[in-house]
């Protein structure tokens, strides 16, 4: 492991960030790019400060759908995985379908969910996010619980352990890295699910509807400001998961650093 100063570590990405922004600004101005194609960063920033309240209200609604849906879907995924770890027949029955359904573009069901729950009902977005996050969570968790070094199970057998002890001492810790990988994937999926769900209809104060409306009204600067906020939300969500991962499985993060 090499020791690097904060400047060495964070300097290059920060430099790249400002360089890209500057280049973007410069090119848009130099070639006089039309705003509906791509507004300049300064124009987007201006739009953001003009519409902060609107964006934040919309973002709050979307975050809520994403987080609740995520909690519901991921929670159910973990629970089902734990059940299948205990009852092998359940796993063998469910896994082929789970893997098949995981490759289905579930977002295509969004209009159906809107129809079931009503497009302005938060449940319609929570449901779509829950379904989207459920399958990757469950599949990864099942892998983590079952892909255990056989010698570890044999060692536990030599200690005459109960299946519950094997679950707690071996299978669950073994599954934690898989769990966090799935959480990272799901954190992004949940925001995509919520926003795209809103594109198919939702309350006025939601990121999806807001972006769609502003774009339809040719207020592309406003639309872009909201898009940038969605992007930052996605990154923030991801960083929260990484932070939790560092706390929960330091032994694994340290292997990564090697």
């Amino acid at each position, binding site marked *: 492991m090499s020791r690097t100063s904060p400047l060495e570590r964070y300097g290059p990405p920060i430099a790249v960030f400002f360089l890209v922004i500057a280049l973007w600004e410069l090119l848009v101005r130099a070639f006089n790019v039309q705003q509906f194609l791509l507004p300049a960063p300064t124009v987007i920033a201006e739009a953001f400060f003009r519409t902060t309240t609107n964006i934040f209200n919309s973002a709050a609604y979307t975050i809520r759908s994403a987080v609740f849906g995520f909690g519901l879907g991921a929670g159910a995924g973990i629970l089902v995985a734990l059940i299948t770890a205990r009852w092998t027949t359940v796993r063998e029955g469910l896994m082929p379908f789970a893997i098949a359904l995981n490759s289905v573009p579930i977002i295509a069901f969004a209009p159906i969910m809107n129809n079931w729950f009503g497009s302005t009902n938060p449940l319609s977005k929570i449901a779509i996010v829950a379904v989207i996050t459920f399958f990757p969570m469950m599949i990864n968790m099942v892998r983590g619980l079952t892909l255990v*070094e056989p*010698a*570890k199970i*044999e*060692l*536990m*057998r*030599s*200690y*005459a*352990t109960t299946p519950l*002890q094997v679950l707690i*001492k*071996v299978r669950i*810790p*073994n599954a*934690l890295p898989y769990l966090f990988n799935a959480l990272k994937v799901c954190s992004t999926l949940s925001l995509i699910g919520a926003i795209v769900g809103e594109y198919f209809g939702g309350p006025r104060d939601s990121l999806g509807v807001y972006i769609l409306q502003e774009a339809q009204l040719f207020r592309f600067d406003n639309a872009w400001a909201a898009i940038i906020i969605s992007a930052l939300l996605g990154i923030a969500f991801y960083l929260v998961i990484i932070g939790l991962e560092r706390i929960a*499985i330091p*032994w*694994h993060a*340290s*292997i990564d650093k*090697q």
Partner: protein
Amino acid sequence: MASVVSLKNVNKFFGPAERPTTIALKDINLEIQPREFISLIGPSGCGKSTLLRTIGDLVEPSSGEVLVNGKPAHQARINREYGMVFQAPVLFEWRTVLKNVELPLEIMGVPKAERIRRGREMLRLVELQHFERHYPWQLSGGMQQRVAIARALAFRPELLLMDEPFGALDEITRERMNAELLRIWHETQTTVVFVTHSIPEAVFLSTRVVVMSARPGRITEIIPIDLPYPRNVETRESPRFFELVTLVREALRKSEEMREELELR
């Protein structure tokens, strides 16, 4: 004196009972006395690992009787009367070195303070007391295997089962680990059953070397090792050591030839 391990007419077949596809163990009879260090040696496929696992009740014999401390092997496993060391260290990546050693104690419900005390004592025994907070991946292969030995001895079993524990180590590390193991064996007064395919290792460590042959896996010879204690580097260079190594090698070759003759017939 009562045997620690008693094997009577033990057979292990794989496949259907009337037409077994593999005879892993055939008519195994062996008595192991307290404080003995027994090596099982033979070519791969001779069933030495299977035999070790039947003693540990990790494999069930097809017929015959396996007693550990006078009880059926199954009961001995339930009572946790033996410690096991595998070829791979099988340490839990998410546990520190000390926590790995504490694992069996934790399962047995030993209180925390006592667990830590005994864990540290075991780490001192394998001379890893300065590494208790390290994670397994931060240690070398030899050190990891020493943690595995500490873990196997943590609950002070009277019997230690070792399945080629040093097979993955380089020659120099292996010789050092051999000396280590002998010291630990003396200090803990444990009975050891040790699977290996290294002749010098078997001779250096054992009180008796059990020579096995493959297909069917059976015991062809038992060679007592009369090397004096303490055994050290000079032991390895003594004429008697070479004589015994040759004796074991010839026994292995003889059992191989016998098998080939059997197969030709």
